[in-house]
C-alpha cells in the first residue's frame, strides 16, 4: 500500500513522517534538511499492516513529471497534499494541488486525495473557529475547479505536529485505504455492545496510530489518554519485563496487559492482540466487574482479526498473480 506526500517546499512533509514514524521530537524538526530526492518510509510494525510512505521533494512540479515519478504515482492508493496554513494566501499551492489531482487522476483513477491543512497551531489558530475558517476557506477555493473538471473531491484534515491531530489524521487516512478495516470496525462495535465498553481502539504500539476503532466519534482527549497509557505500559515493561539484553519489542509480549483505574469512574484496559498491536478499551468501572467475560470476547475478536487480515492477504496475492 503506497501513499505519497506532496506539497510545496518547507511545508512540513518530511517533518510529519519523522515525528510520527521515526520518533523525532517536534522541536527537532526545525533542523532537518530539505528533501532533495524521493524518499520512502516503510511501515511494517505488525503482521497485519504494511504501508510505504513516499516523501516527494518540495521542488516536484507535476508539469515536469518524468516516467519514474509517473510509475510511483500510478501505484499510489492515496496522495496527501500538505498545505502550510500559516503561509497565506493559499492560491498558488491550491492551484498546484488541482493540477496534481488532474494529472494523477488521468492515469490512476482509483487514487484518493487528501489535504492536510498543516501547521494549524501557534498564534494564528488559537481558537477552533479560526481553524475551521481556514478549512472552509480552502474547500471554497477548490470547489469550482473540482466541479468544473469533474475531479474526485479530496478530504480535509487540520493537522499539527505539536499535538495528536497529525496522528489522528494519519490513522483516519490509513483506515480509508484499507477496506478490510470496515469488518474490524463492525467487530469492534459488537465487542463494545456485548461488553458495555465506551470506546475501543486497536493501536499500533510503536507509532501510536490506531489501525481501527469503533464507529463512535474519536475525541482527541480519549485518544491521547490511550496513547499515554501505551507509553506507561512500554516504559514499565522495559524496566521490569525484559530479561538480559532484550529490547523494547520483547517488553511487549503475548501476555502484555494493563488496567488503569481513574477516579472519574473510568477504567482503561489494554490487551495485546498481535505482535506490537494492542487493544485499548475505555470502560466504566462498574462495567469492568466481569473482566473474564471481556477477556473471552477479546480472544474471539483476536481470532476474527487474524482471519480478516489473512483473507485480505490471500486476496492481494491472487490479484498480484493475475497481473
Amino acid at each position, binding site marked *: 500500500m503506497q501513499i505519497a506526500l506532496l506539497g510545496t517546499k518547507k511545508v512540513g512533509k518530511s517533518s510529519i513522517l519523522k515525528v510520527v514514524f521515526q520518533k523525532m521530537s517536534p522541536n527537532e524538526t526545525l533542523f532537518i534538511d530539505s528533501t532533495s530526492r524521493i524518499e520512502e518510509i516503510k511501515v511494517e510494525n505488525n503482521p497485519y499492516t504494511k504501508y510505504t510512505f513516499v516523501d516527494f521533494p518540495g521542488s516536484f512540479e507535476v508539469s515536469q513529471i518524468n516516467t519514474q515519478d509517473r510509475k510511483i504515482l500510478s501505484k499510489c492508493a492515496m496522495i496527501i497534499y500538505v498545505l502550510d496554513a500559516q503561509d497565506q494566501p493559499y492560491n498558488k499551492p491550491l492551484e498546484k494541488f488541482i493540477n496534481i489531482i488532474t494529472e494523477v487522476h488521468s492515469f490512476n483513477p482509483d487514487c484518493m486525495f487528501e489535504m492536510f491543512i498543516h501547521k494549524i497551531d501557534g498564534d494564528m489558530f488559537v481558537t477552533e473557529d479560526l481553524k475551521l475558517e481556514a478549512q472552509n476557506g480552502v474547500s471554497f477555493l477548490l470547489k469550482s475547479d473540482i466541479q468544473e473538471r469533474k475531479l474526485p473531491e479530496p478530504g480535509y484534515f487540520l493537522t499539527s505536529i505539536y499535538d495528536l491531530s497529525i496522528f489522528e489524521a494519519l490513522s483516519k487516512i490509513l483506515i480509508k485505504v484499507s477496506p478490510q478495516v470496515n469488518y474490524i470496525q463492525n467487530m469492534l462495535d459488537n465487542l463494545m455492545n456485548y461488553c458495555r465498553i465506551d470506546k475501543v481502539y486497536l493501536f499500533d504500539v510503536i507509532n501510536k496510530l490506531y489501525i481501527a476503532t469503533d464507529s463512535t466519534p474519536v475525541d482527541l482527549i480519549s485518544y*491521547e489518554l490511550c496513547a499515554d497509557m501505551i507509553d506507561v505500559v512500554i516504559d514499565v515493561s522495559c524496566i521490569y*519485563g525484559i530479561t538480559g539484553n532484550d529490547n523494547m519489542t520483547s517488553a511487549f509480549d503475548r501476555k502484555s496487559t494493563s*488496567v*488503569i483505574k481513574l477516579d472519574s469512574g473510568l477504567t482503561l484496559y489494554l490487551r495485546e492482540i498481535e505482535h506490537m498491536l494492542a487493544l485499548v478499551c475505555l470502560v466504566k468501572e462498574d462495567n469492568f466487574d466481569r473482566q473474564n467475560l471481556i477477556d473471552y470476547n477479546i480472544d474471539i475478536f483476536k481470532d476474527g482479526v487474524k482471519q480478516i487480515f489473512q483473507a485480505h492477504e490471500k486476496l492481494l496475492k491472487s490479484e498480484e498473480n493475475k497481473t
Partner: protein
Amino acid sequence: MEENDSNRKVLLMGKNGAGKTSMRSIIFANFLPKDTMRLGFTIAINESRIRFLGTLCLALWDCGGQDHFMQHYFESQRDTLFRSVQVLIYVFDIKSDDQRDMKYYKSCVEAIKEHSPTARIFVLIHKMDLIPLEKRSETYSKKEREVYQNSENLSVVCFATSIWDETLYLAWSKIVNYMIPNSEMLSQSLKKFCVACEADEVVLFEKSTFLVISSYSAKEHRDTHRFEKISNIIKLFKLSCSKAAARFKSMTVANSNFCAFIDEFTSSTYIMLVSSDSSVQPALTQMNIGIAKKHFEGIVKASTVSQ
C-alpha cells in the same frame, strides 16, 4: 531554636537562570518540563509551605538569583536567611562559566557554617542534558571536584540533574528522604510486607510528588535508576490524566515475565509492588495491599515524628 520542629527550612539557592524555580515547579507544582519555559525570574525570596507525607511540613525558600538579591542575602539578610536551616540546596547551571557562581556558593557555605552548622548541603549540577553524552561524565566530575574544594570541608552531596529525565527525581527523593526523621522504621516494615507478599520489590511513593520515600528489594535488579524512572513515568501520566479531568487511582502492568501493581496506599502515599512469580495470584496481592493499608497509615505517621 525557636522554629517549629516540624517545619523544616530548606534554602534553594543558585545564580539566576540556574533552574531552581523550574525544578520546584515540576516536583511540587505539577508542571510539565516544557511548561517551565514560561516561568519568569524569581523576585527576591519565594517561600512555599509544602506538606509532605501528611504531617511533615517543608518551608521551601526559593531565593531569586539575580545579583542584587544575592548581595542582600550575604549582607543585610544574612542571619534571617541562614538561621535554622535544615537543608541547603545549591543549583549550578553546568553551562555557565560565570566565576561569581562559585564565589556565591562559597559565601553560602560560609554563612551556613556560621548560622546553621548542622545543616546538610546538597549541590545539584543542573542542565546536564545540554552537555553532549560523551562529555557528560568528565564535565560533571570536574565541577564536582571544584564544588568540594569550595565547601570548607563540610560534607556535601552532589547530583547531576536535568528536568528532561529521571535524574531530577533521584536528587529530590534523596533530599526529601534526609528530612524524614525515622525512615528506617518504614523500610523495616516494607521489608516485612514484601516478604509476606512474596514479591520481588516494594516501593513507597509520596502521593502528589511521586518521590520515592522508601523501598525494599528482595531480588537484585540490573537497573539501579529504575525507581526514579518510575517516578518520572507515573508523574507524566498523572499530568496526562489531569488533561482528561481525572486522577489515576490504581494501575497494574504485566507481561509474561512480571506483574506490577501501583495503588493508593496510605492517605499520603502510593505503593508499587513488583512480582515475577507467576504462581502468586494478582487478586491475592491486591487483597494483601488492602489489608496492609491501615497498618501502614500508623507507621508512615510515626516515621515523620522525631525520636
